[in-house]
């Protein structure tokens, strides 16, 4: 018996509310499944069964009553400080009630474990972590995506039906894409962020859900937003496409699948596809990296950099030291480019409802060497992925990654971006796309999720 483990998040919640599923049994079954499946994946880095049982005992009859959730190692819990995937996060970390924790608790959910993440949230791959890398359930030798690597791998392998990630430069959408999940990067400021160690300084990071499909994301994100994200039929969508490297310098199989998905979405909503221009896109990518990097430096001194824990990876240590060499004037200009990109997008969103391009230009690369082959040549996955992921963080708009195909036995994903505050439209569009392909890709499961206890 799977005790409801394999039900979608919303069906777990509904079954518990209807008295058809025992929340205590679900929690114990979830802990058992983590014990069984997690060693091969390293998706969950810590469980705390007694804390979870206490949380369930005190859980209010909210919309997620009794539903087990994994939360990324990026927020403190009342009984555990976050580690940010690192031996040394160069910031104070103490146990406490983070915004996402409160949102989950108040909705009745049960935090059942902490999800692995890329060290310091600094990559799209997930291949470096103080805990060792999480592994992609579709192929354990491939990257799960980062930085929300553990939350994505946990949901894909059906350890849990939903997880909370964070997205500062694509960090929900990349792992959602690599693991075949749906992941929403909310409009900046709309989802719970209190208690994050950079909450007061970051202008790019948001919390958000990773789930199997858009309806589950809608439910979990409603808790994180503190408001119901109502479902509606997607209108006749005006879909903007950019004939730029973000959609052209893409692995052929990814390009084919994403173009087919865009056509499916157009047909399903009775909409149209419009070519648009985003001339700031390439510079916006650099601008995002500069802004995100400089925002992380506020509490750092040269002395502190000379005393980094040697267990932090050499890449982490080197990149931290390089960041302080970046010229301040470049960050000022990055801010100006942010303004320009925001004005360009505001004008574009009068012509189109969503902008679509591949979430990542190639499927999950090998853990040992995260490189991708693109028409332009061999690139690091980070260099390639940031092209499509950064714009939403730079400008504050919401974006969603939706699975739309498969190549080499690994998921392929399309990203949809919309105007500020139109998170619900993205969820509606994602559901329309799911319907257009008979939910083939959101219901595809990797090998570990096909096993039974």
């Amino acid at each position, binding site marked *: 018996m799977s005790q409801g483990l394999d039900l979608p998040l919303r069906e777990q919640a509904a079954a518990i509310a209807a008295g058809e599923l025992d929340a205590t049994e679900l929690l114990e079954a979830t802990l058992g499944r983590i014990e069984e499946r997690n060693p091969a994946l390293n998706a969950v880095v810590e469980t705390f069964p007694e804390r979870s049982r206490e949380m369930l005992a005190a859980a209010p009859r909210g919309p997620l009553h009794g539903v087990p959730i994994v939360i990324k190692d990026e927020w403190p819990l009342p009984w555990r400080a976050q580690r940010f995937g690192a031996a040394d996060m160069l910031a104070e970390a103490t146990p406490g009630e983070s915004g996402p924790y409160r949102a989950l608790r108040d909705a009745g959910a049960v935090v059942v474990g902490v999800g692995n993440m890329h060290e310091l949230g600094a990559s799209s791959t997930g291949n470096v972590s103080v805990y060792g890398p999480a592994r992609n359930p579709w192929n354990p030798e491939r990257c799960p995506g980062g930085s929300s690597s553990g939350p994505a791998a946990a949901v894909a392998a059906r350890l849990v039906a939903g997880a909370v990630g964070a997205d500062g430069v694509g960090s929900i959408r990349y792992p959602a894409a690599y693991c075949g999940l749906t992941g929403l990067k909310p*409009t*900046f*400021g*709309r989802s719970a962020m209190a208690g994050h160690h950079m909450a007061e300084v970051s*202008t790019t990071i948001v919390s958000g859900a990773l789930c199997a499909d858009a309806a589950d994301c809608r439910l979990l994100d409603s808790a994180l937003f503190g408001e119901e994200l109502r479902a509606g039929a997607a209108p006749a969508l005006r879909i903007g496409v950019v004939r730029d490297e973000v959609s052209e310098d893409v692995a052929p199989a990814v390009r084919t699948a994403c173009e087919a998905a865009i056509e499916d979405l157009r047909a399903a909503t009775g909409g149209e596809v419009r070519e648009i221009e985003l001339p700031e896109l*390439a*510079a916006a990518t*650099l*601008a995002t*990296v*500069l802004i995100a990097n400089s925002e992380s430096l506020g509490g750092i001194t*040269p*002395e502190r*950099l*000379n005393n980094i824990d040697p267990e932090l990876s*050499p*890449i982490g*240590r*080197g*990149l931290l*030291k*390089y960041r*302080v*060499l*970046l*010229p301040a*004037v*470049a960050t000022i*200009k*990055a801010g*100006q*480019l*942010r*303004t*320009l990109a*925001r*004005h360009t*997008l*505001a004008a574009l*969103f009068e012509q189109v409802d969503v902008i679509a391009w591949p979430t990542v230009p190639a499927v999950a690369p090998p853990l040992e060497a995260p490189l991708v082959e693109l028409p332009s040549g061999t690139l690091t996955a980070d*260099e390639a992925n940031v092209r499509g992921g950064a714009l939403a963080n730079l*400008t*504050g708009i919401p974006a969603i990654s939706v699975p739309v195909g498969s190549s080499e036995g690994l998921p392929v994903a399309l990203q949809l971006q919309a*105007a*500020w*505050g139109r998170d619900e439209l993205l969820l509606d569009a994602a559901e329309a796309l799911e319907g257009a392909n008979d939910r083939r890709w959101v219901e595809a499961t990797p090998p570990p999720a096909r096993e039974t206890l």
Partner: protein
Amino acid sequence: MEPANSSDDFIPAGLAALGIEADEIELAVIGAAHQLFWPPILELLALDTSAIPVERNPDLSRAPRR
């Protein structure tokens, strides 16, 4: 004067000026990052951004004010 893309001078001098120590592996990482980031940073610095409207303390949850 042509800007130098080489990390040979800039990185050791910059780190030394800030009193930051780096071992050989860290220097290799920094050098690789510099090769990746510095050319587009130079392009960014060369951009004339004087015509871009100022958005002071932008509210990133909303569209920019016209």
